[in-house]
């Protein structure tokens, strides 16, 4: 019996509404991000970029891709499932509805594609649109995989396109 049910297929291709990131591009968050990826580019520092075409300090290229986070006042899945030994810690991405019957399956990152247009600047507000582009089963030597492809667009609140993404998630069904 397939796990890619009609309820799952109904969600494929449907773009989410534009959803703002709960925080702007914060200089402290940029610093922690840059230090975590070990890229001390001076363009990320406060005060940088005044005379450059960036128009001020910027975030690392993929920083906006990680800005869709849980706002205050929303359900805390980590706490809700704190005593669940099977909870893998993956909190469903905001903006997209969970795929019925698939959310409990172990997940691995299969790959990504990005198309970049400009950097996010410190203090800038960004918003996201996403959709499930594909969901299908694949038989591999490790068993059945559910391949989930998510496409996204990230724009500044003034409408300028920052980047497009296409992520492939692999959920192990058996």
């Amino acid at each position, binding site marked *: 019996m397939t796990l890619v049910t009609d309820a799952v297929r109904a969600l494929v291709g449907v773009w989410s509404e534009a959803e703002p990131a709960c925080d702007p591009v914060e200089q402290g968050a940029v610093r922690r991000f840059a230090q975590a990826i070990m890229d001390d*580019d001076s363009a990320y520092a406060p005060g940088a970029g005044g005379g450059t075409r960036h128009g001020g300090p910027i975030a690392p290229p993929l920083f906006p891709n*990680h800005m869709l986070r849980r706002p205050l006042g929303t359900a805390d899945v980590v706490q809700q499932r704190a005593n669940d030994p099977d909870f893998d810690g993956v909190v469903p991405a905001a903006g997209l509805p969970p795929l019925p019957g698939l959310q409990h399956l172990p997940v691995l990152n299969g790959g*990504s594609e*990005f*198309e970049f247009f400009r950097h996010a600047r410190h203090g800038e507000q960004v918003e996201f649109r996403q959709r499930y582009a594909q969901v299908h089963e694949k038989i591999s030597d490790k068993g059945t995989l559910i*391949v989930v492809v998510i496409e996204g667009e990230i724009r500044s609140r003034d409408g300028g396109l920052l980047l497009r993404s296409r992520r492939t998630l692999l959920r192990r069904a058996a």
Partner: protein
Amino acid sequence: MSQTPLFDDVRAGMVLAPLHKGPLTTMHLMRWSAAMENWHRIHYDRSFAVEHDRLPDLLVNGSLKQQFIVQLLKDWAGPDGWVWKVSVQFRAMNLVGETLRIWARVRDTREAQAFGLVGLELGILNAHGQESTPGSAVVALPYRGGPPVPYPFVATEDVLLSGLHLQGGTRA
């Protein structure tokens, strides 16, 4: 950030200076998980990774590895170039404790009207020379004596028709 190479000086087969990261410890993985607020336990909870998800050890995040690839390309493109497209496939696991070598090589080049386009193949090797993250990219570079690549980047019709595309795409 380095100076931008000129398109005129780039040839197929040219190898970019590699980037080395690691050894990547649990602290590195925890720091990255915290920075991006991703609490997937396979990156910091060894018993969950091994006993529950049947993995060999804690995994280096794919999302962290793709940062390293973009850093290599961004630093090569410099202030007047632009990393337009990047594609990576996470084909093999990298485990905690590994040291990674991020590499890229020019595959081919195309001339567009206002700047040149460089297609690259790339990846991540561990200390044993095993490839985990093959991919490709397209980087725009200025011509000698020409203006910087426009910023924000706009993929004009001649760029889209250049015939230079990502190779392989993500696994699906």
